[in-house]
């Protein structure tokens, strides 16, 4: 019986018609190409994300002058070899200021993302694993937070705590965790039905252990994609608020506030103070986006950077 059917219904690769073999070959080639493409995206992203802080740390060694020391002999000089980004209206080297701002922007971007992720994974995990009224309450709050015009509420937090970083930290974390919670919950709904979780439950493991050891590692990857988007987003928000004068206060250098300091002279044609520092924000943003999108592509997540 088995022999008879194998002659009429070919199974395995050997029995494929030439046409379907060609199709499979094309699909496989395309999959490999996409795989290579996402690998490339991830590595380019890692390079961009790492190169900015490394160069920033080396910057003072190469030496473009002190980021906050005015030099009235070198006011508003256009970009040159001595000052690649030019100098501002008090003669400070713009590139030196951009370098000096890198640790601050990275710190705020990464720390607010980390805090949001921890809170979001915790609440999303609880909502997805336990379900019921806990799930309903947490997800209602998440829905409300995601719909909020968050920039306005982050500004409101700045009003509460006064201009500076406290309000930005509190505001970004208060609204940022919702995205992590939503993704974690969705993953958890699938994971809690998986065999290995059911097995762990049958084995009588404590719930805290099941969540920590069996569930947590499996929700990290999609959360990492969300985290990359959140870093970009939070750095942009910090820069926007500093640009508006609500974030980091002068003379401390921050990418957005450097851009703001060049706005009035932009109108009379002295363009470099406002434009060139923005490039660094774009480089860092594209870097984190490439990492996030590369991973999303590789594992077939349909959520991306943009909410």
């Amino acid at each position: 019986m088995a022999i008879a059917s194998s002659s009429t219904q070919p199974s395995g690769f050997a029995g494929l018609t030439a046409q379907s073999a060609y199709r499979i070959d094309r699909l496989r080639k395309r999959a490999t190409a996409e795989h290579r493409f996402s690998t490339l995206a991830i590595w380019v992203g890692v390079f961009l994300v790492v190169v900015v802080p490394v160069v920033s740390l080396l910057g003072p060694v190469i030496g473009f002058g002190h980021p906050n020391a005015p030099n009235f002999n070198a006011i508003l000089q256009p970009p040159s070899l001595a000052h690649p980004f030019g100098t501002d209206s008090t003669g400070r080297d713009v590139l030196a200021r951009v370098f000096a701002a890198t640790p601050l922007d990275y710190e705020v971007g990464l720390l607010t993302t980390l805090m949001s992720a921890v809170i979001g994974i915790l609440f999303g995990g609880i909502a997805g694993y336990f379900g019921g009224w806990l799930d309903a309450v947490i997800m209602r709050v998440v829905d409300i937070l995601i719909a909020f015009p968050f920039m306005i509420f982050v500004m409101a937090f700045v009003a509460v705590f006064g201009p500076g970083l406290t309000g930005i930290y509190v505001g970004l974390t208060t609204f940022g965790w919702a995205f992590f919670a939503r993704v974690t919950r969705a993953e958890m709904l699938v994971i809690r039905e998986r065999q290995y979780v059911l097995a762990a439950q049958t084995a009588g493991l404590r719930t805290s252990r099941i969540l920590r050891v069996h569930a947590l590692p499996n929700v990290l990857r999609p959360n990492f994609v969300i985290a990359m988007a959140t870093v970009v987003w939070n750095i942009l928000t910090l820069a926007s608020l500093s640009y508006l004068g609500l974030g980091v206060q002068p003379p401390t250098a921050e990418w957005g506030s450097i851009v703001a300091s060049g706005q009035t002279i932009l109108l009379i044609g002295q363009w470099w103070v406002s434009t060139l520092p923005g490039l660094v924000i774009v480089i860092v943003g594209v870097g984190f986006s490439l990492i996030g999108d590369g991973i999303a592509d590789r594992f077939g997540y349909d959520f991306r950077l943009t909410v």
Partner: protein
Amino acid sequence: MGFYLIRRMLQSLMALIGITLVAFLLIQLVPGDPARAVLGPRASASAVAALRRAMGLDRSLPTQYWSFLTNAFHLNFGFSTLQQSPVASLIWPRLGSTLLLTAYATVVSVVFAVPLALVSALRRNRPADHAIRLTTMVTFAMPAFWLGLLLILLLSVHLTVFPPSGYGVGFVGHLDSLTLPALTLGLGLAPLIVRTLRGSMVETLGSEYVEAARARGFREARVLRRYVLRNSLVASVTVVGVNVGYILSIVVVIENVFALPGLGSLLVTSVQNRDFPVVQGIALVLGAIVIIVNLVTDLGYSLLDPRIRLSGNR
């Protein structure tokens, strides 16, 4: 439909209450005395006490919240001590400019996004698609205020096509002055729409009714126009509706770049001066607008597409 409508409206009501709660509780978070924070360290104790009474801070929390809620319901957002004016009379004249800019920017971004998404979907995983996706990734990482300054440099300083700031006179003047801000916002928002649309167009292009239309021998242009584009317009309206909170967030920043007399510039000066009633009022008004737009989008979409309301009962 009736059940879905009621459920969805209840959700919106809860979101509204959530927003009033957050706006109300904000002032309780102020370190120290909010009245002192408004008046500054050199104000006399009696002035602070008087302001505390005027702000209602001497009453119990639930009483305060109840009067905050009922006042807000009557569109009374309190009194700005700093500007010596009711908050509502500060907000209403500026709301028009903000809404006009938001609408203008939305139109611009859809005009940019739809053709890009179509090309991206038709040339999926080809160089054109990769180029468009890379471009949208770059524009997404651009700070909106920076993009605005680049456009000012290019179109106002070098080419002098549009005014770099201000609001113009009359409706045409408004539109002229709003073009550059709307262009900035449109370019910033387009990536958001392109990404969602590309996905939905890829799906539409692979669907059986498009295949059937092609099989009937319709010209490709007609298939794209009648079947793919029409579907994608509904999708892009939804993307805009769902992300209106994100759009307003950027509008607030952009208004300050172009010195537009909208809610964004009022918000920034009020935050700087710690003028809490104005901040609360703007948060409430913009929050309510977001909730209403989300609701209208959802209901409109579910009217057009019954699958939404039927699967929404989960």
